[in-house]
């Protein structure tokens, strides 16, 4: 048993916790990533959970996973896991394909009885062989029995005892990666602040797991992670949905406007509603209303009344909000619409990720109905893009659709808490007192932006509406030439916003022949692939879009600079076809994946390598 433990120094590792959806894998994963962030690692996490809240225990449909990527140079939750924790055969079976060659598999041997194997539809009594994991270093640990023995005198009932297994696994993984247990215990204590007995039991079991690893000197490599050099500051761990909510609060503070959210629960966007509802303690008015349409319409009402107004949803909800967004276009009111994209069409794959709502966001309304469309690229970038979406909406009197997705919405990273001075002021386009008397609601400034008069302001009473209005008088008009003029004015207003947007920045090797193009939540994977290729002496250039409509001013110039441009997206080529319309005659190569899963860095590297070889 005394085989010496080998210590590997790695720059980054990926750990995947998996078990029944009631096994507490998300909690174990969360604590592990927080502890790692606390010792200076970059982190990126991604939960992979089933749509069923509690599928039958031990079955394939009920497996829940949580992947954590820690170390330096971390831009994604990682393609494949260095370590897989599988609490039962079903978890082993569904997650086997995510294990790196030669990786470590830790399993709870007590839950691999014949009946357990049968539930997970294994046909032989060798699940390792059958799952194709012969290449892996398997560490079977009788977790359930050890937890029971450890807590025999705890006074807890059997069910509560068994529920502590996840902490044994966490303790073992902490040992494997030399993570200190103090921080993990601290997090656990907060989690179970109101249940000291449960905390004590979990903390004990976690120490047992750690000690077990230490004592058996498991004949596997242990890892030491090199910590990343990150910018000094106070950090916290945040997922994209929470970051989105916080970015809106920041915009509310910078604009001096109260924040209003009208929303209806929908996966995977609901956490935005949850967070903003909690932030009533910062003055946010977040209300859950009767349906998606009421979500957007209450927000439009709040905007008319002078708030920073937001509605949050996912693809099916965006479809329901279309008419409301059209009203905001026509009445030229500031409105932020957040679409956390998921697999579609229809109900589709609610808990999975995709980029298939782009064209819906751009064009999914009746009439000539231009809106600003922006997209966030990482969990923490959700903060910045939510802030920017609000800023654009308020300063340009227009609806703005912010596209995030299930992957970055649920995924989390370490985030340096910014000083709010790092963010610009937001100056809504209010009516000025000197306009009193002559002012009409559809008067425009030199940017084609109309002025905002809040109800309650004396002398500026006015009527808005969905009917076309006269350029001069702002009264209802069906005049043909007037309509065309108003259509163009609304378009011009949105186009003019490009002047305020940051220019595109070419990353990777700008002198390369091949340009990789991405947008939104695929940034981490594309960036990692580009880095890997350039490091391997295969030059590629890379641009990533956060601003979709309007496009940054130098978009055409950059895209025309490269002979070969490949647009990569998690759909059938929506951004590529949009770019084709904007840049006539330019041919775009496409790399598309529509599996409701993120890209894998490895598949991107493989594909781009092939493209380079074709040159």
């Amino acid at each position: 048993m005394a085989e010496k433990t080998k210590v590997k120094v790695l720059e980054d590792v990926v750990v995947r916790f998996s078990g029944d959806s009631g096994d507490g894998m998300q909690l174990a994963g969360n604590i592990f990533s927080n502890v790692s962030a606390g010792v200076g690692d970059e982190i990126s996490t991604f939960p992979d959970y089933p749509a069923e809240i509690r599928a039958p225990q031990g079955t394939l449909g009920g497996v829940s996973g949580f992947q954590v990527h820690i170390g330096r140079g971390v831009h994604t939750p990682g393609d494949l896991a260095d370590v897989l924790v599988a609490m039962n055969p079903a978890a082993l079976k569904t997650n086997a394909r995510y294990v790196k060659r030669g990786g470590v598999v830790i399993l709870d041997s007590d839950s691999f009885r014949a009946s357990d194997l049968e539930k997970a539809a294994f046909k032989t009594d060798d699940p390792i062989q059958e799952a194709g994991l012969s290449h892996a270093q398997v560490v079977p640990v009788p977790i359930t029995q050890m937890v029971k023995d450890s807590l025999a005198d705890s006074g807890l009932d059997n069910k509560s005892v068994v529920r502590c297994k996840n902490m044994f696994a966490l303790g073992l993984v902490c040992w494997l990666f030399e993570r200190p247990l103090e921080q993990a215990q601290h997090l656990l204590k907060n989690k179970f602040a109101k249940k000291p007995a449960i905390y004590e039991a979990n903390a004990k079991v976690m120490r047992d797991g750690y000690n077990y690893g230490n004592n058996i000197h498991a004949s596997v490599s242990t890892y030491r992670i090199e910590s990343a050099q990150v910018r000094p500051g106070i950090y916290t761990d945040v997922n994209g949905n929470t970051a989105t909510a916080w970015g809106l609060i920041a915009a509310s503070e910078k604009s001096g406007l109260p924040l209003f959210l009208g929303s209806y629960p929908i996966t995977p966007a609901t956490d935005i509603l949850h967070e903003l509802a909690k932030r009533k303690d910062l003055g946010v008015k977040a209300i859950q209303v009767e349906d998606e349409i009421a979500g957007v319409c209450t927000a439009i009402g709040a905007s008319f009344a002078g708030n920073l107004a937001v509605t949050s949803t996912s693809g099916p909800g965006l479809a329901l909000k279309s008419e409301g967004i059209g009203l905001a276009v026509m009445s030229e009111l500031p409105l932020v619409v957040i679409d956390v994209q998921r697999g579609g069409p229809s109900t589709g794959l609610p808990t999975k990720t995709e980029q298939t709502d782009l064209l819906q966001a751009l064009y999914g309304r009746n009439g000539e109905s231009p809106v600003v469309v922006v997209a966030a690229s990482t969990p923490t970038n959700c903060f910045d893009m939510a802030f920017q979406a609000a800023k654009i909406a308020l300063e340009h009197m227009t609806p703005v659709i912010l596209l995030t997705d299930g992957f970055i919405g649920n995924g989390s990273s370490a985030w340096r808490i910014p000083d709010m001075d790092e963010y610009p002021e937001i100056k809504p386009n209010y009516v000025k007192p000197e306009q009193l008397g002559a002012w009409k609601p559809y008067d425009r400034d030199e940017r084609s932006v109309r002025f905002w008069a809040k109800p309650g302001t004396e002398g500026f009473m006015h009527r808005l509406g969905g009917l076309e209005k006269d350029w001069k008088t702002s009264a209802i008009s069906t005049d043909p030439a007037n309509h065309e003029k108003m259509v163009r004015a609304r378009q011009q207003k949105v186009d003019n916003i490009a002047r305020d947007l940051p220019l595109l920045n070419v990353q990777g090797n700008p002198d390369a022949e091949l340009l990789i193009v991405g947008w939104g939540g695929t940034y981490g994977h594309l960036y990692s692939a580009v880095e890997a290729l350039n490091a391997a002496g295969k030059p590629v250039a890379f641009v990533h879009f956060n601003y979709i409509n309007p496009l940054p001013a130098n978009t055409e110039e950059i895209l025309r600079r490269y002979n070969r441009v490949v647009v990569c997206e998690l759909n059938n080529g929506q951004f590529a076809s949009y770019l084709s319309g904007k840049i006539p005659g330019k041919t775009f190569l496409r790399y598309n994946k529509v599996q409701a899963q993120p890209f894998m860095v490895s598949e991107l590297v493989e594909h781009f390598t092939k493209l380079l070889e074709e040159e």
Partner: protein
Amino acid sequence: MEEQKEYTAKDYKSDQYVRWCPGCGDHSIVNVLQKAMATLGIPPHKTVVISGIGCSSRLPYYMNTYGFHTIHGRAAAVATGVKTANPDLTVWQISGDGDCLAIGGNHFIHSVRRNIDINVVLMNNKIYGLTKGQYSPTSDRGFVTKSSPYGTVEDPFIPAELVFGARGTFFARSLDVELSVSQEVLVEAARHKGTSVVELLQNCVIFNNNIHSYVADKEFRADRTIHLRHGEKMIFGKDNNRGLVLDGYKLKAVTIGENGVTLDDILVHDAKSPDNFLHQSLAMMDGHDLPLAIGVIRNVDAPAYDQEVARQVKEVTAKVPYHSLREFLLNGETWEVK
């Protein structure tokens, strides 16, 4: 206290030419609404009128207030947003029977259930006018229209019944031709804290002429309607000698002075009773066996949604040690990188 200024109906009238058909009941309703607003004395700049789509929903354009002509069925949701965002505003929702009860039915029942402090003016002409004559959710069974050439095969909503089903706190009714009652109920509706629904039976001179004439005609109106006032006897009839009594669980019309009935036997209207059983019975009278009730039928106090949201925000902000996003973030789980 802000300086109390005297307003007249004219202060609420915009410069826009009114485009309803000559003879349409909406003309008198907009006039009465402006008079009611003057009576209330809430300044035009603190008054917001929100509408959906339909003939009646053009109304905001004729008001010199803040106004928003929104989309079909959604006025209640937009009005909810306005009032929740700024509870200091007085918010009116103008809807027709199609806008409010068909496409907007869901928002209607939920705003009533929530008791958001808005005043809903429901103009009921039992027809779609703007789309040129189709049956509405309040059209009677068998009603023949362009979209029901052989008559409808469905029963209508009775708006009051929906309001009570959604646990409404205020319901009133009037006729487009009953100007003083209409003004009275609109004023009461605005003073009530919570969702106030005012059903105005309104004539569509083009597509559904005389639909309410059974009760609205001057010749029969006194005998076929009853004007309910809180704390007063339920008396009606052109000779003011008819009254309502309870017969078991049912209302019954009686004549004072006949069969030993005296004024003492007649019910007194209690609009403020939390129990809505009698309110519902009164609201369901249709002018045939029993007179159609006009006036304020139900008016009870309950917490208003917009006030509750504001109260909760105030309460929870006072309890936490942080008052800005950065303070909040630094108060949470953090670590320092040096």
